[in-house]
């Protein structure tokens, strides 16, 4: 791989491409870990069957009326969603780690997509600087640190 004569943008894109491998599709164990969340969140692991009482209780306990990112009332933004701070397709071994879960509104969840954490912070810093500090405050430092173990 010749890295000379490449623009900085290209180099960053290259790092993204390698860093964004979807681990839940690589091994059986990764896929199993990835699916664990579905079984906890949805009846029979199927989103169309509704949500389990256990996960509803968890949402109730870990959220109030307002989205921690945009600060809007959930009723105004299509309601609550459970988001993986570090996306489960990228970090399947953290799919059922409760430190990795938080409740945010549907709009913010869609905006966040499958971004890695600092990528998301960067995106918010550039596009929604007024919300950046809220996002920074939610940084999963402990989990990011655990990658170095």
């Amino acid at each position, binding site marked *: 791989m010749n890295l000379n004569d490449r623009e900085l943008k290209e180099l*960053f894109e290259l*790092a*993204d491409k*390698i*860093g*964004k*491998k979807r*681990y839940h599709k690589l*091994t059986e*164990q990764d896929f199993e870990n990835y699916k664990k969340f579905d079984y906890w969140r949805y009846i029979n692991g199927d989103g169309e069957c509704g949500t389990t009482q256990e996960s509803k209780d968890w949402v109730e306990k870990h959220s109030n009326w307002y989205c921690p990112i945009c600060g809007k009332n959930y009723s105004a933004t299509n309601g609550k969603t459970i988001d993986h701070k*570090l996306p489960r397709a*990228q*970090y399947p*071994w953290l799919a059922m780690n409760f430190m990795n879960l938080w409740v945010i509104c549907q709009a913010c969840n869609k905006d966040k997509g499958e971004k*890695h*954490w*600092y*990528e998301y*912070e*960067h995106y918010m*810093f*550039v596009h929604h600087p007024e919300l950046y500090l809220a996002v920074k405050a939610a940084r999963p430092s402990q989990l*990011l640190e*655990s*990658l*170095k*173990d």
Partner: protein
Amino acid sequence: MKRSEAIKLLESEAWTKADAIRALEVIDFNNNPDELTIRRAISNFAGSELSHRQRLQAAQKGQVTKKNKEIEQIHKEYDVKITRYKQELKQARERNETELHNLTAVNNELKAEVRRLSLNNDQLKKDNISLKEKLQNLTIANKDLDAKLTNTNLVNEQLKKDNKDLKNVVDAIKLKLAIEVNQLLKYEDSEIRKALIKLFNSTLG
């Protein structure tokens, strides 16, 4: 004539001694009877005794005839039974012979089967020993592979984390650059140059 002489006389004429004694009972030998007296007395006895004995003989003959007929009937029944038994025996023998023949054939087949199974069994024993050896080898190989797999899994876990860690490091650098540049843009034009040099110094170590 004395009693003993008279008895002897009659015995000499083929009388039995018992008959002679019974025939002479009616005679008083104290009167010394002559032969004529004796002959008259015994002819009376002989007549009645003879008819009495003929009656007895006739009765006995009748019984003999009856018994003979019974015996003959029994013989006939036994003959029928014996004939039937012989027939049954013959049939039983024939059946037994057939059965024996069949059993002999079955026995031969079974013996052949036993021989065949014996050979099979020997082959299976050999195969079993060979399979045991293979199994042992495979078990050893399997343990080896398990150890390798465990090791590979550990390495894989580590590499997954490292990959994501690096990705986050790159993203953190981009974020930091964005924040720094954002700060730079707040400076006056004359200060930007100094700040830029400072930034590059910190970036390149």
